[in-house]
């Protein structure tokens, strides 16, 4: 069995709702699969099936070759789960929560204490270690929850929307941690609604909607699927906006999108870039930004599901980090 996680034809119905409607997936050891989908797509259901918490109505799934239904106990020895909602015992302190898991996993008390200390330090919870977790903030709870799933050093980690509710710094740190775990050989199944997160972390992305896989591939493959690229031009002077809009519209053969001073349009031919530069130069327009970039996953998502992702544009569409080719 050369797949860490493998599933075929998973089906799970809740009454009329088809939460999973024939999902296949395969994750190679030491890689990250990003499960991407809008609310109610079936992400959590998929994770719960793979974590042995839910029996599929049809289909099969295995983890390191162990069947999630028949060899559930073996599967549980391999996985660490961080559910969508923080599942910490609110009456216990941070240390006690981790100690509880450690003891349940059969780790001797001194080692379990040591492990709890390590994890609390790693997640910057040392100061709050001996406080009842009901006094924790949402983000702290989330981090403790993550720490809990790492107590047993699982070879497979399921993270159901792990960064929801974390501030940008905590989010970046968590990404870093996930990268380190993966570098150490851990396989990760990650669900997220943040496209940039899947883009950052996942080796492979599966987009699901209404319980079905509607697209899968590497982040680049998915972006390539939508074919087009985005041309973005930002004039230095506001009065040049109409000229820029008309030039871009003419060359891209499409009505450009104007957001503030940024003019964007979908293009298929990369040759428009030099043409735009020439025309704007002739017109004496100075631009502060001029770029041709591959569509962001946001746009891919929109194309695939027919509805936008739940993300508020914080660093998606405007960021120059996704620029592939740019001219000045």
């Amino acid at each position, binding site marked *: 069995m050369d797949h860490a996680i493998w599933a075929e034809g998973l089906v799970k119905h809740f009454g009329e709702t088809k939460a999973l409607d024939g999902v296949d997936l395969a994750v190679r050891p030491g890689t990250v699969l990003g499960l991407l989908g809008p609310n109610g797509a079936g992400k959590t259901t998929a994770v719960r099936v793979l974590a042995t918490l839910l029996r599929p109505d049809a289909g099969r799934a295995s983890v390191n070759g162990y069947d999630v239904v028949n060899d559930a106990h*073996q599967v549980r*020895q391999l996985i660490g789960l961080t559910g969508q909602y923080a599942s910490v015992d609110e009456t216990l302190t941070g240390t006690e929560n981790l100690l509880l898991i450690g003891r349940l996993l059969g780790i001797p008390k001194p080692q379990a204490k040591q492990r709890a200390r390590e994890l609390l330090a790693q997640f910057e919870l040392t100061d709050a270690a001996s406080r009842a977790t009901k006094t924790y903030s949402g983000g702290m709870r989330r981090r403790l929850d993550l720490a809990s799933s790492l107590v047993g050093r699982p*070879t497979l980690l399921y993270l159901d929307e792990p960064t929801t509710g974390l501030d940008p710094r905590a989010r970046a740190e968590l990404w870093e941690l996930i990268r380190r775990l993966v570098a150490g050989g851990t396989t990760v199944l990650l669900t997220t609604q943040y496209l940039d997160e899947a883009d950052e972390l996942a080796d492979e992305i599966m987009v699901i909607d209404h319980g079905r896989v509607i697209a899968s591939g590497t982040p680049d493959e998915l972006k390539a699927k939508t074919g087009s690229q985005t041309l973005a031009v930002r004039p230095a002077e506001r009065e040049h906006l109409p000229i820029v809009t008309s030039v871009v519209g003419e060359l891209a053969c499409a009505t450009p999108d104007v957001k503030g001073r940024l003019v964007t349009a979908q293009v298929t031919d990369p040759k428009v870039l030099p043409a735009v530069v020439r025309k704007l130069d002739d017109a004496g327009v100075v631009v502060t930004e001029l770029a041709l970039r591959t569509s962001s996953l946001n746009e891919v998502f929109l194309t695939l599901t027919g509805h936008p992702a739940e993300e508020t544009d914080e660093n998606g569409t405007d960021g120059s980090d996704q620029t592939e080719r740019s001219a000045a």
Partner: protein
Amino acid sequence: MTAITATPPSAPALSPRVSPIDGVRQSLTLAWRTIVQVRHNPWELGDFSFQPIMFVLLFTFVFGGAIAGDWQGYLQFMLPGMITMNMLFVTMYVAQGLNTDLTKGVFDRLRSLPIARWAPLAGRIAADQVKQAWSIVLVLGIGLIMGFRIGTNVGGLLVAIVLLLVFALCFSWVSVLVGVLARDPERVQIFGFTALFPVTFVSNVFVPTETMPGWLQAFVKVNPVSILSDACRALMLGDKTVGTPWHVGSAGPPVVQSLIWAAAIVLVFAPLSVWALKRKI
């Protein structure tokens, strides 16, 4: 044994199932959680010690004289029943704890761990027995301070306590069902009050059955709360009229009937609770 082939990152031998001994150990670890909770929040102990103390004082000093002629005699009659009644209320902590685990996702986390399937539930119930023992000692202690006197001997008292604990253990299954069905922990409390109050009050805990109208007596006589109270009275006071205006019968029949009731409750509620729990998760 430690030789590891390349493919899966690390492959220690995985055990196919949990041994019963490990299961017991895991249950005790989970029960430890409840003890720690109480240590952190002694007021939680207050929650369920305050009410019985208040009830004992209230019924003895306020109603005692009117019901039995003198409060000393009434205390003798009422205290064993009060211990029984309080025991039933304390079992609701199983429901509350379980419901909290279910609604807060802790139960899911536990189920994703390689531990015995029954450990989370067993841990809950086991932990409750500790609270149970404490609350029995508490009510009894208050009673003794106020002048309650054991009419039998230490043996009788111990049998009564064991009987109460056995009954509590069995009745915990009702509590498990409540915990599974309730939508949130607050509703568990509402249930505790709305269902347990009538059942415990319409019994012979506070007044003898003979003082009630005939149609009510029929219910009171079969009410396990009455039967268990009778058993405790007989075991603590003896088969005689001691300080109370009412006669206490022999211990045998009510003890046996209590155990039959306890068994019946388990037979009905254990499968029902497990079924409901499996449906819910």
